[in-house]
């Protein structure tokens, strides 16, 4: 009842806002800034930071009201890392000054964010990373040197969420610090990293004595691992937890291909299809249940399952879609090295989807790492005996 009242109150706020801000007569950016300042950007954020401190579940009503009025949005597909990872991290661990500096241009899309975590030598073992941040003598600011990899959209980014080693003399998890790195300063070089799909959705980022202000540090020196855990948790929720209708996403494409191409049907493909359809629908219901728990303030560990299930289903569904394409499955839409600013999974062909989905069980924590996390943190199984957690990072064999 209360939620319904709040939703209708918010809809009225949007209509009042639109009465004073005609989206057709205003520049897009100005409109988005005004929407942020009115607390209608993300209502679950605090007042003064684009929100009103309300339940996250109320946002849908606001977005629908703006969409119905034909108002421009902030192109969330382009700024997914900012919205999904940077913003919650800044909100949870940033100072008031940092929140005020970063959240507004992040939300409007004026400033794109990327994530500088993985390195060539630190993938699943993220805490072993080697990029060094050294404090200027006396000055308090930092100089960063190292190489980052798998950096989506770094070529368009203004800021990078940077995890760097500030103390090699302590065990690896304890020597990390979290920063926001200005991607425009000298010493930051972004190179496209071509993937097996042919495009360069990701980049390599070379940091050579790049300057980072101490005021851009997020969390305490040496507390970077804890802050990064918060970012990664949000990443996995973002990858595994979207709200979709029945036959949404890849399931819908495969079902449509099945209905359209009777000549492609075989008993074996039918068995795979209906298994995947059923598993995808059950996974969707599990996602609905998870969001119902979150909305009721009863978060459960089930979110850890969602990303594993999504990765497997998206891979098997896209493989099936390609097989249903018949002779066209042998053709590929485009091998040119493109640098897309947002992931266009559904705008490309089935061959692209098949190839791109192979990354789903690697990015954002491999399915194997996630199984280990579930086994130890959810099921409480004993940890693997380890040799790397008590030794100073600098003394680890490599």
């Amino acid at each position, binding site marked *: 009842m209360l939620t319904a009242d709040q939703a209708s109150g918010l809809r009225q706020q949007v209509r009042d806002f639109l009465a004073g801000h005609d989206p057709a007569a205003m520049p897009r950016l100005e409109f988005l800034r005004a929407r942020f300042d009115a607390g209608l950007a993300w209502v679950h954020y605090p007042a003064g930071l684009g929100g009103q401190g309300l339940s996250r579940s109320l946002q849908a009503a606001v977005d629908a009201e703006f969409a119905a009025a034909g108002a421009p949005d902030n192109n969330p597909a382009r700024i997914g890392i900012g919205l999904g990872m940077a913003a919650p991290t800044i909100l949870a661990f940033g100072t008031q000054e940092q929140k005020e500096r970063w959240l507004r241009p992040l939300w409007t899309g004026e400033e794109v964010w990327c994530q500088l975590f993985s390195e060539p030598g630190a993938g699943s073992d993220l805490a072993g990373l080697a990029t060094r941040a050294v404090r200027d003598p006396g000055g308090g600011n930092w100089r960063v040197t190292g190489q980052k990899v798998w950096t989506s959209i770094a070529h368009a980014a203004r800021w990078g969420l940077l995890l760097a080693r500030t103390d090699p003399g302590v065990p690896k998890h304890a020597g990390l610090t979290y920063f926001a790195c200005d991607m425009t300063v000298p010493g930051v070089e972004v190179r496209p990293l071509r993937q097996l799909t042919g495009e360069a959705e990701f980049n390599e980022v070379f940091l050579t004595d790049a300057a980072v202000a101490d005021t851009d540090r997020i969390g305490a020196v040496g507390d970077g691992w804890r802050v990064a855990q918060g970012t990664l948790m949000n990443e996995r929720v973002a990858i595994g937890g979207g709200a979709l209708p029945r036959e949404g996403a890849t399931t819908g494409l495969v079902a449509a291909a099945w209905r359209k191409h009777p000549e492609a049907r075989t008993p074996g493909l039918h068995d795979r299809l209906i298994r995947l359809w059923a598993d995808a*629908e059950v996974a969707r*219901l599990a996602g609905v249940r998870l969001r119902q728990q979150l909305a009721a303030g009863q978060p459960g560990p089930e979110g850890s399952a969602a990303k594993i*299930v999504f990765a497997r289903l998206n891979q098997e569904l896209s493989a099936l879609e390609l097989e249903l394409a018949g002779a066209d499955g042998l053709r590929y839409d485009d091998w040119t090295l493109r640098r897309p600013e947002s992931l266009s999974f559904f705008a490309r062909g089935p061959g692209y989807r098949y190839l791109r989905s192979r990354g789903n069980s690697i990015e954002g924590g491999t399915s194997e790492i996630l199984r280990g996390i579930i086994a130890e943190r959810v099921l409480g199984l004993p940890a693997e005996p380890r040799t790397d957690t008590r030794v100073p990072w600098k003394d680890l064999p490599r």
Partner: protein
Amino acid sequence: MTTVSPGERPPGTPRWPAAPLLRHGALAATADSSTEGARSREAVPDLRYSDAEEQLRAVARDLLADRSPWPAVLARVDAGEADDVPLWHALAADLGCAGLLIPESHGGAGASYREAAVVAEETGRAAACVPYLTSAVIATTALLGTGDDLLAGLAAGRLTAALAIDFAAMPPAPDEGGMGAWAGGPWPVRVGPPEDGDAPGLARLSGTARGVAGALAADVLLVPGDGVPLRLYAVAAAATEVSREAVASLDATRPLADVTLDRAPGRPVASGEPAARAVAGALAAGAGMLASEQLGVAERCLEMTIAYVKERRQFARPVGSFQALKHRLADVWVAITQARAAARYAAACLAAGDPDTPVAVALAKAACGEAAVLAAQECVQLHGGIGFTWEHPAHLLLKRAKSGSLALGTPDRHRAALAALVDLPPPPGG
């Protein structure tokens, strides 16, 4: 093509007479969600457990843990006395679980399949030797629409009933044309004329229904008689014209019997469309609640296995610290998170009479059946040698899991039904 034509049905598989089915073909949204798709998303009911359901779970679990620990179940299986009469009385009458689905006007609790599903989970966890599913769910559902006086006896726990249909029977497919002349079947029991002195309306029934679950514990058998229109009869199980022959059941905690009627007096409780709805609804509800029971089986298997691999040491460390085992248990847990969502959706749809019920039941029976079998097989495997012994309870859960997945439609049959419901037709001639 959203219906299954009679020629595609295996013999003996009746058609479901439920409300017009949801047009899933119309929901064939692509990546961009359509308004139809958005509607279906909003329609998902609450899939969580309510506080009241958790309270019900707690009392049922306490009772089962106290009265039906593993050694007691094993002893019962060894003695061939798989019906635990005192436990069933405590669950059915003292806790009132037999009357959950029965309206208060007939002496029941007026609850719904949501609550009934929670009790089913607990009976599955314990591999309890009680006819809860067969009497309090299946037979009770068959009688709900009739308003028959038997309901009061069932609600009070004075009577136990069983639907005299093979436990392997698949719930019939929905039929958007309504019942018409549907009679299911062919049913194995023939309907003959009354004998001199029989009360008016009584018929005499003859034939053998094989593989009936819960028949040995039943006071009343509900028997579909072969013929048009379909009639459902109540038969006193203790009548001299009724013989119930116990068969060795794959799941010794759920006894089966071949029930032979030889001119047994049967009182009609429903006829024509109501009878067809009663039978079809009972099988569908049975499949939906069996899915929840299977969820309970799977959870218990996982818990038992986790406890064991934490404690069992080989190579000077707990075997649960080996990644090869951890990943397998993580996969079981993931399967359970999925199965739980499916089971809750089926229970909620059954409770609300939702037109999506056939889809929900098929999803749940397939997902929970496979999760339970996976969890039970992993339970045996990860216990190693001890898990292969008669003295360890793992086999009780394995048998409960596998037989439950075979009963009331295998996962594969439910997926085939789903394919018809959501307009994913098999290849021509397939």
